[in-house]
């Protein structure tokens, strides 16, 4: 029955292939996670100050969101390909679009999170003598964290999916398994790659949600 699901009646998964290719799959998984983690970390590092600035100086919001928003609408495969003549077949080519996409998601969430801090809390903090920077770091950002972490979760799942596309320009990651499955008309690496992608994304999402509850037990998780 499962065999009939594919046009050529080959089984979904050839388990002998799986058992002999564990190192390959783990290697691809490692590359995949590497790209995801680095692009997220860089995205956070860029988005936090940018988001705070856009929150403070509302005049910055439109240009910031507009610039990164425009970038966001460009399909990733086009961006990867367009960067090759400039940054070559290096990790930078893969990372630049990924980081750009993450910055948009995170900046939006930083702004919304900061916007949502109740006015009376800010007044109370001012009344207690908090200077602006201290108020930002010790009151506003912590209260904005649920929104920011929600953004990190969305960015993570989204990035894991887009990293698969880097395989089309010669990168590894789980997308390489999918591409191999396509080119060689071979189901197993395709299924393994796609399934691992789902599992990693879900694992990351659940893990981040749990981490959020652990760090911010008083906040309602999104």
């Amino acid at each position, binding site marked *: 029955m499962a065999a009939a699901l*594919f046009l050529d009646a080959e089984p979904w998964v050839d388990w002998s292939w799986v058992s002999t290719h564990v190192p390959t799959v783990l290697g691809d998984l490692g590359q995949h996670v590497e790209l995801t983690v680095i692009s997220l970390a860089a995205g956070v590092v860029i988005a936090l100050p940018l988001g705070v600035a856009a929150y403070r100086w509302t005049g910055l919001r439109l240009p910031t969101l507009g610039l990164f928003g425009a970038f966001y609408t460009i*399909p*990733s*495969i086009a961006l990867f390909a367009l960067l090759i003549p400039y940054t070559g077949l290096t990790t930078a080519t893969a990372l630049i679009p990924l980081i750009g996409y993450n910055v948009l998601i995170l900046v939006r969430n930083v702004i919304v999170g900061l916007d949502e801090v109740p006015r009376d809390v800010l007044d109370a903090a001012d009344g207690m003598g908090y200077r602006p920077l201290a108020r930002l770091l010790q009151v506003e950002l912590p209260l904005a964290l649920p929104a920011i972490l929600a953004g990190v979760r969305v960015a993570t799942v989204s990035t894991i*999916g887009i990293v*698969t596309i880097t395989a089309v320009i010669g990168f590894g990651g789980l*997308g390489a398994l999918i591409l191999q499955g396509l080119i060689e008309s071979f189901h197993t690496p395709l299924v393994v790659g*796609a399934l691992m992608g*789902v599992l990693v994304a879900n694992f990351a999402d659940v893990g981040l949600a749990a981490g959020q509850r652990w760090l911010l037990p008083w906040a309602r998780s*999104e």
Partner: protein
Amino acid sequence: MSFLEQVWRWFGDAQHWQGTDGVPTRLAEHLHLSAESVFIGALIALPIGIALGHYGRFGNLAINVSNTGRAVPSFGLLVIAFQVFGLGDGPIIIALTALAIPPMVTNSYVALREVDPDVKEAARGMGYRELAQLLRVELPLSVPLIMAGIRTSAVQVVATATLAALIAGGGFGRYIVDGLATQDYTKLFAGAVLVALLALATELSLSAAERALVPRGIRLQRAPTKRRATAFKTA
């Protein structure tokens, strides 16, 4: 001639606007793939989300399944659809529909759940039967969030439809994939611009539709729906 000038010239070349590889043809293909997927996805997702939200049952299951759906790499899904169903538009639409469903289920479920219980209570008190309550009270109140879900889905599908070109599909993705294969970066960039413009047009037109559909009374009294990371990139 700078690269951007070359791209400008590309759009100005009349030949690029006719024939099987012309912009109108590719636009029609891209719209066909996207619109059908979102439409069929809505037919499946909205009833499910609305019903679950109305009855308040299995919500967490629905949302978890939806989130799992979001986690499927779109490239992988398209290739699987190709290997299961073969060449053509059908398999592509099947894969894109699967991608379109999660945001619409989640949003319609949450929308129905967020309807003020007092309002529902009042409706019951006024004598509304269950179906009438749903149709004439709950749904109108849920329209903004449901439309936001449809909008998210649509923009996502338009962007992901570009990947269809990797499995011989049509649409603007063809300019990107063919441009890469022949190192014609002008064509590639033109394709990227066209997809971005189409995604933007989709977002704007569905926003306008949302404004038109939300009953005036609700629009006036309701605060704008929180735009929390509504966009989700799958391609």
